[in-house]
């Protein structure tokens, strides 16, 4: 019989261009915050799962999990790195969840980190390109903005989605990031500014794209039955699901939907015994503005082809219908790829505890995180709820 | 007797007009246009080189011929702009047409006549029975130094010919070939040099004219044919003027050379030039009609051929990609700055 699992501590580094911080500083910033928040001793931690996508390409540093464990002062515990492209963080969380749920470990730390700004943006683009099919996509110079641009163009073709609607995703997420002290951007923007920003891969402009970021995030997990020993407001993991698909975008059944997201979401709703309508806050994977729109549809928040209009109407702003990407999302808060999936959980925990400050959503009860790897080859969905 | 069983051509879609080049160098466009008899030239796209042109031409030739590429016994690629100094263009061609690994293959270089030299080699192999089919391709993305007179003509294109001897397949018999060769320093490019060097007016009389007339006269004398015995004639065409002059000197009419005279509209495709001219002439030749072809390569030499269309030419015409159609169907005019960028003459980012 599986055990119920709770998040008992969360921590974030500040996201952004962190010229003063390397991998170790970022990991320590987030990790120490999470351990303090959980009120556990370093010696209580039994295992560490560390998500990072391309520390080798970005920093020349592999073997990140043992490094993370040592930097945080965990003595000789098992530590393992998880690489699942931009879904590395979410995948690490799922493995941490499994290790606690199974009864193998009690106190587990899940970390995610990426230090991306020590290389040129072209080198970063090439490293991220490895999340797609290197032999057929990256080899032909098809970048990630290019892949999502093709999804966007097809979505516009099939559903009449507009560039203004795409831009409104970015505007909302910048509004939310403005209220998040950890976020990379603290600047509100307008639809016109998005439309006027430099074309990257039509129809996606620079402000439709999440930035290159440095950052780290950490969580402490424990069996729900002992969680209150450490923390007054443990947040229960109601579901942890994941699915995969082809790395090549061209080989997918649809360009306007990420099937792995739908599959993971349906399984998660079933496991958590909730439906999409029960979700009050969601951190979704908006690596590009079109990705948030597709996520809203694939997660079942909106019917296919209806999400773009909903964003434009403001239905997903803070305390509107469903509050999406309260942290600012990948676009506003930043996207240090390996950290993102963990950071999403941190934000949801803060919201469910009522600790999200200015961006607090009223009566947030059930929250969802959605972390995508590549152009949709991996999707991880977690659902969280208050423990009482 | 061997003959042509199929042919194919490729000319890039990009063009630059004489006016566009003349404007940059402060020259008189009208004088150049009438002096060289050229209006515009083809320019390779950024993603085209002699190998891609050779492949496009070779694939069309295979399609036109209807042969199984696995039966191709030899592939020669003549060019003076092979993309590699060392690594054969012919290997790219054999892979891309699906030839077998037992094919003989090599790159040839004899300035603008390496392609016709390859036809001669293929004829020998086919006639001797060593191979069933042989293909020779002439393809170039020729170089002209910015500001040099060659810049108005040096262009890009190529053609491929498949030689065989099955009388049910041959669309044109090659009745005879002769060559005329000497050591004549009219035009050259040293290893590693980006652009060729030419010796000005010396390229004319001692180079082009002496060799073309030498080979053609040798051909006429040894066969007893006279210019009137040919429906068509193709001479190497470094510009639009020289072939008209040499035709007249040899007793051929403008009408005979008209179908194969392409330089006025695509420029000098170097190794592709006389072969594209022949391909374009075969596009219109009827059974029984004879074509005289004399190529020229600097350095210097000429290969002359007598080609006679067979009954099969009409039957296979539907599978041919017509050269004039290829040239006229889609054109994109570019300006001089784009030309410099696409030719990689600008070293930037």
């Amino acid at each position, binding site marked *: 019989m599986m055990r119920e699992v709770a998040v008992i501590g969360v921590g974030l580094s500040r996201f952004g261009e962190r010229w003063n911080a390397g991998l170790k500083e970022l990991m320590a910033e987030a990790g120490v915050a999470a351990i303090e928040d959980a009120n556990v001793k370093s010696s209580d931690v039994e295992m560490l799962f560390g998500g990072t996508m391309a520390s080798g390409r970005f920093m020349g540093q592999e073997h990140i999990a043992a490094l993370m464990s040592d930097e945080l002062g965990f003595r000789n515990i098992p530590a393992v790195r998880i690489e699942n492209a931009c879904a590395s963080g979410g995948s690490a969380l799922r493995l941490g969840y499994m290790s606690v749920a199974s009864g193998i470990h009690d106190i587990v730390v899940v970390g995610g980190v990426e230090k991306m700004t020590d290389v040129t943006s072209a080198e970063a*683009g090439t490293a991220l390109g490895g999340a797609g099919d290197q*032999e057929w996509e990256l080899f*032909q*110079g098809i*970048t990630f903005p290019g892949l999502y641009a093709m999804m966007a163009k097809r979505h516009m073709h099939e559903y009449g989605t507009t560039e203004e609607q795409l831009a409104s995703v970015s505007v909302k997420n910048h509004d939310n990031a403005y209220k998040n002290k950890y976020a990379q951007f603290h600047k509100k923007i307008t639809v016109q500014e998005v439309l006027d920003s430099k074309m990257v891969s039509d129809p996606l402009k620079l402000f439709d794209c999440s930035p290159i970021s440095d950052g780290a995030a950490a969580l402490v997990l424990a069996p729900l039955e002992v969680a209150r020993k450490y923390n007054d407001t443990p947040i229960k993991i109601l579901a942890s699901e994941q699915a995969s698909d082809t790395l090549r975008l061209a080989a997918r059944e649809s360009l306007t939907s990420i099937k792995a997201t739908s599959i993971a979401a349906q399984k998660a709703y079933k496991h958590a015994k909730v439906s999409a309508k029960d979700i009050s806050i969601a951190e979704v994977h908006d690596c590009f503005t079109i990705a948030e729109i597709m996520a809203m549809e694939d997660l079942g928040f909106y019917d296919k082809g209806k999400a773009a209009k909903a964003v434009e109407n403001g239905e997903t702003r803070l305390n509107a219908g469903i509050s999406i990407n309260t942290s600012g999302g990948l676009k506003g808060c930043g996207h240090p790829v390996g950290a993102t999936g963990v950071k999403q959980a941190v934000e949801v925990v803060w919201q469910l505890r009522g600790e999200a400050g200015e961006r607090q959503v009223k009566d947030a009860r059930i929250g969802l995180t959605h972390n995508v790897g590549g152009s949709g080859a991996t999707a991880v969905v977690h659902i969280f709820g208050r423990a009482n | 007797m061997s003959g042509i069983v199929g042919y194919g051509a490729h000319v890039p879609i990009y063009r630059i007009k004489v006016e566009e080049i003349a404007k940059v160098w402060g020259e008189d466009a009208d004088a150049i246009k009438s002096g060289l008899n050229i209006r515009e030239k083809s320019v390779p796209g950024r993603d085209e*080189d002699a190998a891609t042109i050779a*492949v496009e031409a070779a694939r069309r030739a295979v399609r036109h011929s209807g042969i199984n590429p696995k039966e191709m016994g030899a592939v020669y690629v003549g060019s003076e702009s092979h993309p590699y100094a060392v690594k054969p263009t012919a290997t790219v061609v054999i892979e891309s047409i699906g030839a077998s690994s037992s094919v003989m293959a090599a790159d040839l270089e004899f300035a603008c006549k390496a392609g016709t030299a390859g036809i001669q080699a293929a004829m020998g192999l086919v006639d001797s029975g060593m191979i069933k089919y042989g293909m020779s391709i002439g393809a170039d993305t020729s170089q002209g130094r910015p500001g040099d007179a060659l810049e108005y003509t040096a262009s890009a294109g190529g053609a491929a010919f498949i030689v065989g001897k099955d009388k049910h397949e041959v669309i044109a018999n090659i009745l005879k070939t002769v060559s005329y060769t000497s050591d004549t320093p009219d035009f050259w490019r040293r290893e590693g040099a980006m652009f060729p060097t030419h010796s000005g007016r010396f390229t004319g009389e001692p180079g082009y004219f002496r060799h073309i007339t030498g080979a053609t006269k040798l051909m006429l004398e040894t066969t007893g044919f006279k210019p009137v015995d040919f429906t068509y004639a193709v001479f190497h065409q470094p510009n639009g003027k020289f072939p008209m002059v040499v035709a007249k000197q040899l007793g051929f009419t403008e009408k005979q050379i008209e179908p194969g005279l392409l330089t006025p509209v695509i420029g000098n495709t170097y190794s592709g030039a006389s072969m594209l001219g022949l391909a374009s002439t075969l596009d219109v030749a009827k059974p029984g009609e004879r074509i005289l072809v004399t190529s020229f390569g600097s350095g210097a030499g000429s290969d002359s051929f007598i080609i006679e269309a067979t009954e099969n030419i009409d039957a296979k015409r539907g599978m041919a990609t017509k050269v004039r159609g290829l040239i006229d169907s889609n054109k994109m005019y570019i300006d001089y700055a784009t030309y410099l960028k696409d030719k990689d003459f600008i070293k930037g980012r």
Partner: protein
Amino acid sequence: MEKPSAGLWRKIKPRYNLVGSQCKKCGSTYFPPRIVCKNCGRESRMEDRQFAGDGEVVSFTTIRVPPDTFKDEAPYIVGIIKLSEGPNVEGHIIDNGRKVEVGTKVKAAFRRMYVDGEEGLIYYHYKFEPI
């Protein structure tokens, strides 16, 4: 020189000639080639299948911020092409002046993909050309 040559060499057939695979059991066609059929799994046996190269544009975009290997080529158009025989294939779309839209008919051509620096290999590839 940046790239080892074996990586080019082992994919010459599909890159030059659109040679993919077809399942001998269920007939499903794939490009690029696969070893295991998505329908038949371990029961599958594949054979080479050359695609004609004609198809239509499913989606496309212009890459304006390229990876390092393509810095001299940008901007360039890429797309997902539905081949007439079935599979969807990603590739460059040659700018030949004809308008590219969802649904535009294309055919395969042979072009240079990129050149590895001053001294490295030249990579040739299929591309698609609007017709």
